[in-house]
């Protein structure tokens, strides 16, 4: 097995997605919902010190944006984005707000949704 090369040209970019996360595949802290809202804390940042991916996240979450939107816009796998986000949260660069779920049981909200869909 020693001779097995772990990558070759066919593997695409040499920097694999999980290199961005230093090999980790699970975020730390509480679970980050797909639709949790990510906002920048506007903390003072040193652009030369921050990872470019962190800067990209900060740029993309103004105004606040759900995790799934961010992953799609950054063209990074969801798992990778979650790890970046949990790191950034630890560093105080962003806040992550769980989605507002209680309104789902509010018939008026759902009626608004149905009306809006009918107008599509």
């Amino acid at each position, binding site marked *: 097995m020693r001779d097995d090369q772990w990558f070759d040209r066919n593997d695409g970019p040499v920097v694999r997605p999980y290199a961005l996360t230093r090999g980790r595949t699970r975020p730390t802290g509480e679970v980050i919902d797909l639709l949790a809202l990510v906002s920048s804390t506007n903390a003072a940042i040193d652009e030369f010190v921050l990872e470019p991916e962190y800067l990209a996240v900060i740029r993309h979450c103004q105004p606040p944006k759900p995790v*799934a939107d961010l992953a799609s816009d950054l063209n990074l796998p969801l*798992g*990778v984005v979650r790890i970046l986000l949990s790191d950034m949260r630890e560093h105080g660069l962003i806040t992550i707000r769980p*989605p507002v779920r209680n309104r789902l049981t509010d018939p008026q909200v*759902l009626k608004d949704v*149905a009306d809006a*869909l009918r107008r599509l």
Partner: protein
Amino acid sequence: MPLEDSDDEAAVAGPVSIKILIAGGFGAGKTTLVSSVSEIKPLRTEEMLSEPSMLVDALEGVEGKETTTVAMDFGRITVRDDLVIYLFGTPGQHRFWFMWDELALGALGAVVLADTRRLADSFPSVDYFERRGLPFVVAVNCFDGAKLFQPETVRAALDLNPGVPVVLCDARQRASSRDVLVTLVEYAIRLISDSEVIPAG
């Protein structure tokens, strides 16, 4: 889960996100439906190998090393500044079952797209949403050349509960896909109204 219900909470908590799942067998028209009715974007996720293959491959000790890329359909319909509907096309293959729990969490409901030429492909989705108690509607995608079935025939074949709406649709048509979503939302409203006396949570 505790439910807070003050208006202040709503005002500061940002837009309300409504999540709707689009399920169904491979080739039933999930991508077609999501793209006909919403602004569609690709969403990739890298996940652990499926549970069945984990049983075979004995990954104990190397968890997290065996990942696989799953592409999902992800659509967004902006209703108002403070109200956005997100559509998630659930990965069709059985080996991605494990992702469904996350997708289903907090979802308003689901559309199960059925292709009458392969009706059995929609059994797993129907089973899943029934078990989970998530509101769902069955939308029979009427492909060209597919024999047209009456909704009641499909209902019987899928052994659905009497209340579950079954509609015919053409996933390529925006209006038709939209009507399927309206049917789902109206069904969810009915379910909520019926259970109004039971305190949520």
